[in-house]
């Protein structure tokens, strides 16, 4: 899927959350979105996901816009936020069953068990989602999108709550998706993790796109551009 973002802008009240963002994403790209708090990362992802309508500019997915009732298009978009989008009082497996069915990809219990195996939640299949630990919730969301395999997968700060093995699971999944030509967009503050896999980095600051390059080794431009957003003393070299 080809994505073109043109002069995108989003204003909340008197505040520009995003200002003329222009981007073009090709199949197989793994884009890291970086930037300080309030830069507009989440807003950008939500606009790409069609959850927020832009104030100006356009987002085109294969030339089509995510307008009302573009349901066919929506099957191709995935949005992973660690804690959200799960029904507290449905069990783990019920959640997966419900959402896969919602995407017209009803899965049998076998497929669901397998997905849970991969994120090793199999033993918690009948637990209410509310009773999972934060990292387990994130794993559950991963399982969900593993089952649905969207063309475009947006992730908002996925590393925060995951432990080591969780990170492994996620990275394996994302790499696989990239290899299959899917587009991955990850917004995160965990530079080292996200840059490990990404093929391209975008830096937002106060709603403006200040940096957008294909990854390279070494990467002086990036080090320079991102330097100011690192904690004091923490130096980071690509």
């Amino acid at each position, binding site marked *: 899927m080809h994505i073109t973002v043109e002069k995108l802008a989003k204003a909340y009240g008197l505040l520009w959350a995003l200002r003329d963002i222009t981007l073009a994403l090709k199949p197989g790209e793994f884009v890291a979105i970086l930037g300080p708090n309030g830069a507009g990362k989440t807003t950008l992802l939500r606009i790409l996901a069609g959850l927020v309508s832009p104030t100006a500019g356009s987002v085109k997915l294969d030339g089509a816009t995510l307008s009302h009732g573009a*349901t066919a*298009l929506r099957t191709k978009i995935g949005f992973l936020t660690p804690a959200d989008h799960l*029904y*507290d009082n*449905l069990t783990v497996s019920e959640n997966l069953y419900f959402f896969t069915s919602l995407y017209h990809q009803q899965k049998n219990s076998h497929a669901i068990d397998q997905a849970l195996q991969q994120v090793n939640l199999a033993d918690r299949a009948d637990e209410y989602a509310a009773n999972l630990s934060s990292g387990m919730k994130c794993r559950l969301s991963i399982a969900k999108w593993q089952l649905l395999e969207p063309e475009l997968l947006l992730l908002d700060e996925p590393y925060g709550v995951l432990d080591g093995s969780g990170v492994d699971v996620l990275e394996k999944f994302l790499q696989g998706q990239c290899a299959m030509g899917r587009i991955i967009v990850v917004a995160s503050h965990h530079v080292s993790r996200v840059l490990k896999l990404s093929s391209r980095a975008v830096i937002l600051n106060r709603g403006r796109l200040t940096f957008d390059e294909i990854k390279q080794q070494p990467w002086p431009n990036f080090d320079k551009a991102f330097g100011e957003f690192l904690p004091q003393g923490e130096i980071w070299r690509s």
Partner: protein
Amino acid sequence: MALLRESYLLLWKDLLLELRQRDSLLTMFFFGTLLLFVFHFSFDPAPEKVAEMAPALLWLAFLFTGTLGLAQLFQPERENHCLDALLLSPVDRGALFLAKSCFNLVLMIVVEIVVIPLFWILFNLRSWNLLPQLFLVTLLGTIGFCVLGTIASAITLRARARELLLPLVLFPLMIPVILATIRCMENVLRTGEFGDAIPWLRLLLSFDVIFLTVGVLIFDRVIEN
């Protein structure tokens, strides 16, 4: 048909969440009984008067449960941004509307099925033969209520002061439904048949149809930011 399958799925989810256990049905039952007790304490009615009060009392009970249901209708979606999850998905917004209305409808119908016979027993009314007609009227009225109520509560879902005006406009629309149903019931209870309440019935029917279609059509506009 996709729309119906999706609605069914969403309805399944809501019912599952609501009736995690049979208890909920029991709850309904005792709830119904309770209402009648309360009624009886409020106006301990003379048997002959009960018959003419019945429509009001019954509707009172139904409105109460209905509104309780509406107030909580989108509760599951409010938690964990699950509404976003639904809007993100390719599910037809019309299906969402249908599911929610049906959910509330089911809730109310269960209560009605409990309350009406109980009412007849506890206030020992004789006219059992009229129950079918009454059920029909009630059903039509209930559908109208749920349909309109769902739209209204979807609006209030993320409402700030401004949008709140809309439900204030919507709610008065409920009055025709109530008027119609009560007139019908009265007529049935008095004369034993619909007779000259037929026009009211037609009104009800058209009301339901109109707002059902309207709902399915405009719901995506209503519910998206």
